[in-house]
């Protein structure tokens, strides 16, 4: 039975990406660059919107990887140490956040009404916010955010990687402390990040839980990515005996929990605005309740909450790898849809547009993320092999 998997001597192989995986990553990046370049020439506004969507989508997922690592350090979790390295690898995308923020400088004037002199002149409400919302300050904040994430990512993951060879238990204690320091910094800076990049697309509108909304969806998708990696690495024989169906079951429970959390936050945001019915607040939802956007809004409720919730309810299905894999893919796609839903209604006269640019940049950023993972694992072990709590993870067992 599952309880006795620890009799198998756990082992890991050096990760060598299959040529198909590498080709996919490089091809996706190339496609992303081509789509972006063509877009910039033909309709820059849409190209930048596609860029922003894909950039925020992958950034959220990668940062929530570090969130998973930190929360497990803070709770001194034992069960998860054999899968923690997979989540740590998400930080390999952080340098791209920095570069992506720098590139974004070019798009500010296309994306944000507060950078448009005509809008500022016509709308005193927007003009009043330009002390905070101006290109220089906004990009400084976003770059500061990226640098903070890079610093803590390097520290926390660096300690973990160092432990593989030194076996120094003190590094675990250091990571606990770093995680505790990082957590509030993450909460505040990620909130600001979401306000700067997404909420300010509609500068007259505000929601005080916007940051948590973006976080909840990102973390949900981040767990889905973790599950896909776990299943892929296990089934291809890279990792043996370190984690099994019990770990997959527990991460799937996490995924289900945060599916509910996303719905809870999404509904909390919607209900208060719907109830109060104040014109300056309802603006955001009115844009998403007409024409094609109503369909997208309803699709989000159905495919980002109802379907995963029911699909992950029975115990047997949470322990079925094929099923979990399929639901994880759905969650990742709907998270992209969610970010798209936050960005796009502000453009193209509120028409639903989706096509080559959106798909191209989506794949481009996925490719960058994948390339980061491949390079991370070509340098580092797939499992934090010397973690002092490894024994606990090897004996992890989900009872009824």
């Amino acid at each position: 039975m599952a309880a006795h998997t620890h009799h198998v001597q756990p082992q890991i192989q050096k990760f060598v990406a299959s040529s198909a995986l590498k080709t996919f990553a490089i091809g996706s990046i190339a496609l992303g660059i081509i789509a972006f370049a063509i877009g910039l020439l033909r309709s820059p506004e849409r190209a930048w919107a596609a860029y922003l969507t894909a950039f925020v989508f992958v950034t959220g997922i990668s940062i929530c990887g570090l969130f998973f690592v930190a929360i497990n350090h803070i709770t001194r979790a034992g069960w998860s140490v054999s899968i923690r390295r997979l989540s740590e690898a998400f930080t390999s995308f952080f340098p791209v956040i920095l570069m992506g923020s720098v590139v974004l400088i070019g798009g500010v004037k296309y994306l944000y009404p507060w950078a448009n002199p005509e809008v500022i002149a016509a709308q005193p409400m927007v003009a009043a916010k330009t002390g905070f919302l101006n290109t220089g300050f906004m990009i400084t904040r976003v770059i500061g955010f990226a640098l903070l994430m890079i610093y803590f990512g390097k520290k926390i993951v660096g300690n973990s990687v160092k432990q593989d060879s030194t076996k120094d238990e003190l590094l675990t204690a250091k990571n606990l402390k770093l995680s505790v320091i990082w957590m509030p910094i993450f909460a505040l800076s990620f909130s600001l990040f979401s306000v700067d990049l997404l909420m300010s697309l509609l500068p007259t509108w505000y929601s005080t839980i916007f940051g948590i909304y973006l976080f909840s969806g990102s973390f949900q998708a981040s767990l889905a990515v973790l599950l896909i990696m776990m299943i892929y690495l296990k089934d291809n024989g890279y990792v043996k005996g370190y984690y099994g169906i019990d770990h997959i079951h527990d991460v799937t429970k996490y995924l289900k929990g945060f599916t509910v959390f996303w719905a809870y936050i999404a509904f909390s945001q919607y209900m208060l605005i719907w109830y109060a019915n104040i014109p300056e607040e309802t603006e955001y939802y009115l844009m998403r309740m007409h024409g094609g956007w109503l369909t997208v809004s309803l699709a989000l409720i159905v495919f980002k909450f109802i379907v995963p919730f029911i699909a992950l309810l029975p115990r047997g299905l949470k322990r079925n790898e094929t099923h979990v894999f399929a639901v994880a893919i759905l969650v990742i796609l709907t998270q992209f849809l969610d970010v798209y839903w936050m960005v796009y209604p502000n453009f193209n006269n509120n028409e639903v547009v989706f096509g080559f640019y959106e798909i191209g940049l989506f794949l481009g950023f996925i490719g960058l993320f994948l390339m980061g993972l491949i390079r991370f694992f070509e340098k580092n072990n797939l499992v934090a092999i010397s973690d002092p709590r490894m024994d606990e993870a090897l004996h992890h067992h989900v009872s009824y």
Partner: protein
Amino acid sequence: MGKYQKGLAGIFESEETILKAAEYIKNMGFKKFEALTPYPVHGMEEACGIKRSWIPYVTFIAGVTGLSFGTWLTWWTSAVNWPVNVGGKPFFSLPAFIPIMFELTILFAALSSVGALFYAAGLPTVNPPIIDPDLTSHKFAIFIPANDLGYDEGKLREVFQKLGATEVKLSEF
């Protein structure tokens, strides 16, 4: 829980020995035996051959009942029995009622689960027979009731001893 059964209890001093013993006794064909441990031991359910609990189904059905009741309650009170115009919104306004439906789902599901757990575990039990007071702190026991198929006291004493029991005694559970 009704009447207690007389039977034979083997006392063990470690997780490993009781897990092996439970597995062995399950494989001997016993169905009604119980393992008593001071804390949850990983793998015990499988070792004893215990099937999955039916309590989650109670939770699910109670949750669905709570959701239905919440829907009916909000509809009947706000749209049928005493309709009040609130901010010009429809009498039956789903967004306003979802919190109530949600809370009633949780309330029904949670209370029913606890109730079902008490029923399934035969709680509360007043003054139950005690096999060994140390079972609440650091010892483990397997109890085989005398009415289980294949019960043979002499043979079972030997089996328990072979499995590493530090003490074997006639008891009640």
